[in-house]
């Protein structure tokens, strides 16, 4: 009834090609942005920021990044954790080397550094595909973690090998370091998410995104019709790593504040990001958000329900949490192999007809 194209007249190609062609969707999108920008910053507290929203936003960036590479361009990557580490360490080195530089630029520069490293590790993708490429990116994961553990220059020769973020401000408001208030942490992440998601959406529906999808769907055919695989694959690695690097930089500087590479950016982080896009939906920006929400929020929710709500022992709850999250992943993949995004698409189809289905 409300969710329909009928009556929403488009008079230009631009209108016709917009991201949200249905009026209801468009307003919902504006409403979400408005709530995110105007309501949550005033209602947020330390717990919601540190345990729920900030990790969700940062993982959403990482998931979008991986989705560009895996979902749109079809190159499987298990190196996300390693690339996040590159972002984090680049951020740390830039923060300590140029204390005057604004943190926003530091994070963006960290993204570019990661993009460079990503292109380097993307080179094998020109010769190998599928599982073989996954193994090559796995090597990147282990190599990068080993590198940051092994070379003291990366952690400024600190005794413990930890890196910790000094305080940096944006317009006089601290966004990293211990004095950061919850809303500032949240806002800096949200701004990055909004800009990056917008950029990703527009990249993926333009020339470059189409060349990625052509490569994904059949690389030989793509090459024959004139898509340059070198440019398409390496640009996918660069853009993807840029996103992942920014996620890593924010993860270190804004969210955790102190990081130890083996633990914060280990192989399990690569798997986490991969689970996010598989559960959320490959080749979908919304799917990246849905997957990040599923993997970040569900454990916290379960923990609060089981321990806080039902008062169960913490170890039992922790084990059950693994069981339930694992079970739900399997369930979702059986019920909807194309992820939450596909589920959302089905819901939208149904909504169009509601309440008068055929």
């Amino acid at each position: 009834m409300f969710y329909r194209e009928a009556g929403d007249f488009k008079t230009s190609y631009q209108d016709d090609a917009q991201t949200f062609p249905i009026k209801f969707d468009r307003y919902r999108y504006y409403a979400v942005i408005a709530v995110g920008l105007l309501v949550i910053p005033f209602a947020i507290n330390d717990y919601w920021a540190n345990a729920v929203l900030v990790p969700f936003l940062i993982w959403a960036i990482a998931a979008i990044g991986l989705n560009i590479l895996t979902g749109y361009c079809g190159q499987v990557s298990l190196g996300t954790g390693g690339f996040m580490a590159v972002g984090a360490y680049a951020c740390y080195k830039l923060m300590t080397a140029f204390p005057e530089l604004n943190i926003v630029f530091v994070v963006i520069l960290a993204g570019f550094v990661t993009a460079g490293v990503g292109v380097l590790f993307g080179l094998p993708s020109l010769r190998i595909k599928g599982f073989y490429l996954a193994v090559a990116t796995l090597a990147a994961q282990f190599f990068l973690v080993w590198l940051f553990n092994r070379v003291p220059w990366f952690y400024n020769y600190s005794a413990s090998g930890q890196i910790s973020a000094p305080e940096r401000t944006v317009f006089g408001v601290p966004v990293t370091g211990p004095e950061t208030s919850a809303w500032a942490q949240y806002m800096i992440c949200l701004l990055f998410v909004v800009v990056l998601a917008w950029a990703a959406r527009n990249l993926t529906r333009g020339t470059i995104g189409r060349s990625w999808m052509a490569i994904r769907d059949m690389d030989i055919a793509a090459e024959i019709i004139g898509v340059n695989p070198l440019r398409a694959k390496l640009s996918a690695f660069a853009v993807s790593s840029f996103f992942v690097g920014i996620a890593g930089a924010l993860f270190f500087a804004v969210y955790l504040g102190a990081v130890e590479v083996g633990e914060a950016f280990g192989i399990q982080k690569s798997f986490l990001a991969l689970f996010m896009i598989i559960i959320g939906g490959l080749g979908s920006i919304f799917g990246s958000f849905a997957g990040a929400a599923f993997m970040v929020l569900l454990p916290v929710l379960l923990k609060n329900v089981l321990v806080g709500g039902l008062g169960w022992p913490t170890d039992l709850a922790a084990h059950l949490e693994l069981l339930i999250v694992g079970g739900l992943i399997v369930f979702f993949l059986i019920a909807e192999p194309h992820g939450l995004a596909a589920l959302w698409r089905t819901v939208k189809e149904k909504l169009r007809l509601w309440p008068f289905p055929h």
Partner: protein
Amino acid sequence: MNFKKLAAAALAATIAAGPAMAELVFPSLSYRTGPYAAGGIPFADGYEDYMTLLNERDGGIGGVKISVPECETAYNTEKGVECYESTKGLGSLVYQPLSTGITYQLIPKVSADEIPLHTMGYGRTSAANGEVFEWVFNYPANYWDGASVAITHLLDINDGDISGKKIALVFHNSAYGKEPIRTLEKLSEKHGYELTTLAVDHPGQEQKSQWLQIRRERPDYVIMWGWGVMNQVAVQEAANIRFPMENFIGNWWAGSENDVIPAGEAAHGYKALAMHGTGMDYPIYEDIQQYVVDAGLAAGAGDQVGTVLYSRGLYAAMLAAEAARTAQEIHGTAEITPAMMRDGMENLKITEERMAELGLPDFGPAFEVSCVNHGGPGEAMVQQWDAEAQEWNLITDFIKSDDDVIEPLIEADSTAYAEENALDLRCQ
């Protein structure tokens, strides 16, 4: 979230019921799951049981009941942060995360939130300098003390000369494991031994290559900075290459029953540092049996009573409770705030008489904390595993660490921290 609402409701209820019902909150950031659970469970049980004992026997501390909200971290820094954020609103008096990684996360946070952090024998070593770290304490001993004590023990059994000896350090490749390296390097300059370092990656189940290297290089002694499942594997691997166990010394986190029992007979003679006594020969265990175990109030499965890490949890709880008592005396109020708790920790005096009164005679060293010194005396003993009797025997008295080496290191590291964070020195 639900937990917060519930906690807020509980807090509101206690406030509504009158000041007599107020509680002293000692959150327990424990880990009963994951590869480090073997160490996390007994510590958490000991911590909670001591607090339960105070509640049941004495009605809390200074007449105020204690509550120990537990939060599972799985030794994971992100979960640790979540736990900290979810419990700090409860009026938490002191945090003891039992994880060096989580400690590094929490140091800036507690300093901003003004809640004390006590990292007993772990965490950031240079926090011993109270001039820089106002809210962080690591008495009675820290990693660098541990490294120095191990070397001093080796000096003792070698008649004071270990020059030319080869010593290998097998360490957990994390902030925790890297801590002693700098001290051991300094000490090697002083005593002339040759140091090799061998990193073991998390979680530490795979150590074949490290022990192969030890087999090839034949170091005279192996020192280990391990935790969790890594310890058992290391002891087993050492047994496999027939490394003489009495030349293998673990630090105090690599010296519990869990670490040696899996290797069976082969672990006989394995040495480890100990920062406190262990075993059931202390009068306090009668009270624990009566008020906690028999009353069905024991934490966890209740099967850890008397183990090394249970004793450590007990010790941590005892020091926290004594600090709270000190704070109550200083401020003349039973309901202390985290800031008052900090004063209590800074003025803590543990005497031998007090430990005897508490039912733990000669359990740990007698020491005093001061504004400048947050690190305590830095003493530790050496214990040795007897595989037949299945018990740890203390083979030395408390050994003092080498302050000539450690003091300058602490000074340098804490000064660097103060400069990075633009802190003014306290206690001037």
